[in-house]
C-alpha cells in the first residue's frame, strides 16, 4: 500500500475512533437544535406569572378602563392606601404600584413602582394601554370639536404600515425573495465555522507533529517514509476527519430541516405565526394583518433561496485550501519547537491573520460590499473566513475566482516554506527556535 495512504488511514482512524470525536460530532447538532428550540420556546411562551398591580389614579380618568390583560390584573386604590403602600410594597400582595398623576394628559408621564425588576414587556404593555386611552380620548375630543362625520373612521384609514419585501436579482436575471437577515446569519455562521475548523484541525496537525517529535518516534518514521509523505498523510487524513464531521452535520441538519418542514405544514405554521403575532398584536393593528402571513415557511423559503450549491462549494473549497495553508504552517511550527510554551510563541504570528479575519467577520457581514469586505476576501490569509462571510449575499464571479486563485497561490508558497522548516525541524532538539532561525532553515539545501 502507498505509504502516504497508510499514514492517512492511520491518522484518520486514530481520530475518528476517538470517543471525544464521536461524542462531539453527534452532540453539537443537538446542542444547536436545543439552543434554537429553547429560543423559540422562550419567545412563544411569554411569562405566565400572575400579577396584580395596584393603581392609584390621581387623574380619575382610568377607573374601569384598565381591564385584566393576560395574567395581569389591575386593582384601583384610594390615595391613603397608595401612601401606605409606597412604604411597604414589599410586604403587600401587589406586584407593583402604578401611579397615574393628575397631569398625565399633558405631561405624558406615569410611574410604576416595584420591588422586583419589571419585565420590559409588562411595562410596554402598560405604556401602550395608557397611551391608547389618552389617544382615543384626544381623538374623541377632536371629532367632537370639528363635527366632521365619521372623521374617526377616516383617520383610522390613514394608518399605514409598510412591510419591505427584499428581492434580489440573481446573475441569471431571476428575482428571488431574499432576506438580508437570513444572509447575515448565514454569512456569520459560515465565516465562524470556517474559522473554527481551520483553527481546530490546523492545531490538530500541529499537535500530532509535536507528539511525534516529543515521543522521538519521528526518527523511526522518517527512516521509513519521506517527511513529505508523512506530512501529506497527516494533513489529508485530518482534513478527511473534518469533512466527515461536516458531512455528518450536514446530513443531520438536512434531516432536522426536513423534520421541521414536515412539522410546520402551512396550516400549523400559520397557527404558530398567529400565536407569535397575538402576543404582539397590541402593538399596531397592521401587525395583526401580518399574522396571516406564513412566517415560518417564508423563512424556510428564504433559506432555500440562498445559493446553497455555491455556498456549499465555497465552504468546501475555502475550508480545504485554507486548512491546507494553515495546517502546513502550523505543522511546521510543531516541527520547529520542543515544548508547548515555544509553540505558543510561534503559533501566534501564524494565526494573527486568522484571528483578524474573525474580527472582521461582523463588519463584513454587515456591509458585504465595502472595502474591508473586498480586501479581506481577496488577501489569501484572511480570505477563507472573509469570503465565506460574503458568499451568502451573492458575489461577483471575478472576485470569487481571483480570491480562490490567490489563495491557492499562497497555499503553494506556504507548503514550500512549511516543508523546509518541517524537514529541518523534526530532528532538531534543544534549540530555541525564533523567526531568524527559521529563515535560516529556509536556505538549507534539502
Amino acid at each position, binding site marked *: *500500500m502507498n*505509504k502516504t495512504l*497508510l*499514514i492517512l488511514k*492511520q491518522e484518520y482512524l*486514530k481520530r475518528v475512533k476517538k470517543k471525544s470525536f464521536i461524542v462531539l460530532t453527534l452532540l453539537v447538532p443537538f446542542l444547536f437544535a436545543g439552543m434554537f428550540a429553547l429560543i423559540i420556546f422562550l419567545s412563544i411562551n411569554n411569562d405566565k406569572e400572575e400579577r396584580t398591580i395596584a393603581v392609584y389614579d390621581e387623574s380619575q380618568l382610568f377607573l374601569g378602563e384598565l381591564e385584566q390583560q393576560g395574567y395581569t390584573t389591575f386593582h384601583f386604590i384610594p390615595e391613603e392606601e397608595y401612601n401606605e403602600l409606597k412604604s411597604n410594597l414589599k410586604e403587600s400582595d401587589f406586584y407593583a404600584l402604578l401611579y397615574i398623576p393628575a397631569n398625565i394628559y399633558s405631561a405624558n408621564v406615569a410611574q410604576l413602582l416595584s420591588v422586583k425588576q419589571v419585565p420590559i414587556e409588562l411595562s410596554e404593555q402598560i405604556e401602550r394601554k395608557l397611551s391608547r386611552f389618552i389617544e382615543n380620548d384626544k381623538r374623541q375630543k377632536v371629532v367632537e370639536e370639528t363635527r366632521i362625520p365619521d372623521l374617526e373612521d377616516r383617520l383610522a384609514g390613514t394608518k399605514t404600515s409598510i412591510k419591505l419585501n427584499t428581492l434580489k436579482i440573481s446573475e441569471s436575471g431571476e428575482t428571488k425573495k431574499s432576506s438580508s437577515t437570513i444572509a447575515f446569519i448565514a454569512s456569520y455562521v459560515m465565516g465562524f465555522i470556517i474559522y473554527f475548523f481551520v483553527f481546530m484541525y490546523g492545531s490538530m496537525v500541529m499537535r500530532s507533529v509535536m*507528539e*511525534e517529535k*516529543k*515521543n*522521538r*518516534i519521528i*526518527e*523511526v*518514521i*522518517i*527512516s*521509513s*517514509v*519521506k517527511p513529505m509523505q508523512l506530512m501529506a498523510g497527516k494533513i489529508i487524513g485530518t482534513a478527511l476527519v473534518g469533512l466527515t464531521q461536516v458531512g455528518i452535520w450536514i446530513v443531520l441538519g438536512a434531516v432536522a430541516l426536513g423534520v421541521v418542514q414536515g412539522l410546520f405544514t402551512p396550516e400549523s405554521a400559520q397557527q404558530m405565526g398567529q400565536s407569535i403575532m397575538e402576543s404582539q398584536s397590541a402593538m399596531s393593528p397592521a401587525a395583526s394583518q401580518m399574522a396571516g402571513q406564513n412566517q415560518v415557511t417564508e423563512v424556510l423559503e428564504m433559506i432555500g433561496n440562498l445559493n446553497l450549491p455555491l455556498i456549499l462549494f465555497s465552504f468546501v473549497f475555502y475550508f480545504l485550501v485554507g486548512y491546507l495553508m494553515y495546517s502546513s504552517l502550523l505543522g511546521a511550527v510543531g516541527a520547529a519547537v520542543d515544548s508547548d510554551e515555544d509553540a505558543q510563541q510561534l503559533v501566534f504570528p501564524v494565526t494573527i491573520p486568522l484571528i483578524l479575519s474573525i474580527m472582521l467577520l461582523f463588519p463584513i457581514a454587515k456591509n458585504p460590499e465595502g472595502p474591508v469586505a473586498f480586501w479581506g476576501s481577496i488577501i489569501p490569509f484572511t480570505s477563507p473566513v472573509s469570503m465565506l462571510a460574503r458568499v451568502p449575499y451573492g458575489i461577483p464571479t471575478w472576485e470569487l475566482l481571483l480570491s480562490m486563485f490567490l489563495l491557492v497561490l499562497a497555499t503553494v508558497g506556504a507548503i514550500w516554506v512549511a516543508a523546509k522548516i518541517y524537514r529541518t525541524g523534526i*530532528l532538531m*532538539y534543544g534549540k530555541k527556535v525564533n523567526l531568524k532561525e527559521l529563515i*535560516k532553515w529556509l536556505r*538549507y*539545501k*534539502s
Partner: protein
Amino acid sequence: MEIFSARNVDKTFATTKALSDVSISVNEQSIFGLLGPNGAGKTTLIRIINQITAPDSGEVLLEGRKMKGSDVARIGYLPEERGLYKKMKIGEQAIYLAQLKGLSKQEATRNLKHWFERFEIMTWWNKKVEELSKGMAQKVQFITTVVHKPRLLIFDEPFSGFDPINANLLKREILNLRDEGATIIFSTHNMESVEELCDHIALINKSKKIVDGPTDEIREKYKQNIFEVKYKGEFEEVEKALGQKMKILGHAESEKENQLTVQYLNGDSNNKLIQQLLPVAEIISFEEIIPSMNDVFITAVEESNKK
C-alpha cells in the same frame, strides 16, 4: 563480500562540518562498529545511511547500487533517541510501523506474533505504551526494528538506556541476526560490547575518520609492548636487571609467584626482555597485553586531537 559502503561522504550544517570525506565499507554478515566521541558525526552518518538526510557530496551504496528510496524496506533502524506512540496499542502500533517498512498487514502480524512469542510478551499486544515500563518499551522498539527482516540493521547507541538484562538480550539477538544473515552497523560508547561483537570498526573524530579496520588488527596495531610476566625470584633483582630501558608499570608479590607488568621502549624486543629476565628469575608465564578497545579509543582520539 561488501554489502554496504559510503564513499567520500561530506556533510555540512550551516557552518558546522559534520562529516568530511568519510568512507566506510561493510562486509556482508558482519558486525560493524561505528565509534567516536560525542558530536563526532556518527549520528549524521547513520542518518545519511537511512536516507533521513542527504550528503552534500559523496554517495552511499547498498549491494553495489546507489541507494534509493525503496531501500528503506531493507534497512532496520533503531535510533539513539527512540520512542513509540504513547496512546496506541502495542500490537496495532507495531503493525503500523511494519507496514510503513513495506510489509503487508498479514505478514506484519505473522512476523510480530513470532517475535512477541519469542520475547514472551504476547500479553502486551493490546496494552498501550503508556502502561509499559521503559525496559518493556525497549523490547517493543527492538522488535519493530527487525520485524521486516532487514538485510542491513543499524543501531545507534543500542545499549544506552537499556537495562543490563535487556542489553544482554540485545547482544544475543544481534549475534543471532548476524548468524541468520543480517549485516549490522552500530554505534556505541560501550567499548566492551565492541570487543565482544564487532568484526570491524571505524573511528570518527571531529567529522573525520581516523581509524578503520578489523577489530583485532586494530588492537594489534595499538599494542604498546606491554607484557605481563609471572615469575619466581626477587623483585629487587628483577628491577635491577631490567635497568632504565624497561619501564615497570606494576608488580605484585605472593607466596607462590610474583607478577610484573612491564613495557619496553622502542628499540628493544621481546627476546631482549626475556634475556634480561632469565638470569634473575624463573619465568612461569610471559604474555603480551593487547590494548582494550577503550585504550585504543582514547589513544586514537587523543592523537588525532593533538594534530
